[in-house]
């Protein structure tokens, strides 16, 4: 069992999702960024695109975001978004 990330996805009116995940990928300014446990601390601007969270239970959650930013700090990922739409989940 690999180490996991603590993920918080928040927008201006509230917390959208929070929980543990194995991998997070997001549309960073210079291209898609993928984050696994043990990632170096980073603060990044997000473009519009898809944020995907691979949860512990092998499910994948994804949201379309309009922009925002992301911070990683000792296995805690905080994704702050302006607006998001169509939350979809699927399991592999």
């Amino acid at each position: 069992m690999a180490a996991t990330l603590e993920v918080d996805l928040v927008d201006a009116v509230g917390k959208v999702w929070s929980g543990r995940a194995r991998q997070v990928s997001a549309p960073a300014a210079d291209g898609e960024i993928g984050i696994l446990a043990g990632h170096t601390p980073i603060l990044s601007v997000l473009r519009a695109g898809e944020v995907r969270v691979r949860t512990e239970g092998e499910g994948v959650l994804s949201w379309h975001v309009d922009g925002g930013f992301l911070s990683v700090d000792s296995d805690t990922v905080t994704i702050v978004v302006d607006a998001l739409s169509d939350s979809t989940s699927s399991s592999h």
Partner: protein
Amino acid sequence: MAGSQRVYKQRIKSTQSLKKMFRAQELIAASRIGKARDRVALASPYSRAITRAVSAVATHSDVTHPFLARRTDTNRVAVLLVASDRGMAGAYSATVIRETERLIEQLRDEGREVDLYVSGRRAVSYYTFRQRELAGRWVGQSDAPQLETAREIADTLLERFGAPADEGGVAEVHVVYTQFVNMVTQRPRVIRLLPLEVVEGVAPAGDGGPLPLYDFEPDPETVLDALLPRYFRARIFASLLQAAASELAARQRAMHTATDNAEDLIRTYTRLANQARQGEITQEISEIVSGADALASAS
């Protein structure tokens, strides 16, 4: 005598209908306040995350940004006043307006020109009645502010702050709102939002301890550029939400007091009406008795 009894009855009746109205307002405010407080609580993770990120950028790099720099090219400042759309909230609107007046006077003493932006119909009518000019106004949702309105207000103010001096740029942006402390205490607060003071404005966000050395993607300037407008918007939205919760709490308390006062009045008037009725009866009896006496002594 008969007249005064009728007057008391009328007063009792009108006070009773007022009391019903006060009670209804109290119940409405009470039912909405829970939701308003929830919204304040729900918005806090967002502003906490942004605050933490802003302080991370500010402490780990030497970037400067227009939002952080003091402007010296203009004397003009903007003040945003957050009041309520409706009355029946005790001194709620009066208190923030008084606080704003004090701020404006202080700024004028420093030789500043003040542009006033106002949210809430009560404050708008206060200033239009006095024929004072308003630079901007927003009405209609003081007890349930929407994110779009907050964004519109924030963008208007940011635009003014970013504009050159001869096109109406402002050097500072102040906000006067009411902070929701708890159900009994709501405190008017005056804060300067622009230029941002990273040192005092971004107290460590609590959970984290010392901030790690971040990498910035793509670079610190761009990150700060993306963060600061969001930070500003979040602060504006938070003030509106706090003000909404305060307004409802103030209204609930004011209406509760008004209901109690109406009950007291009804009780007083009922006593007076009873007294008047008793007096009337006594008078009638003494008239009959003295009439009978007169007849008896005549025969």
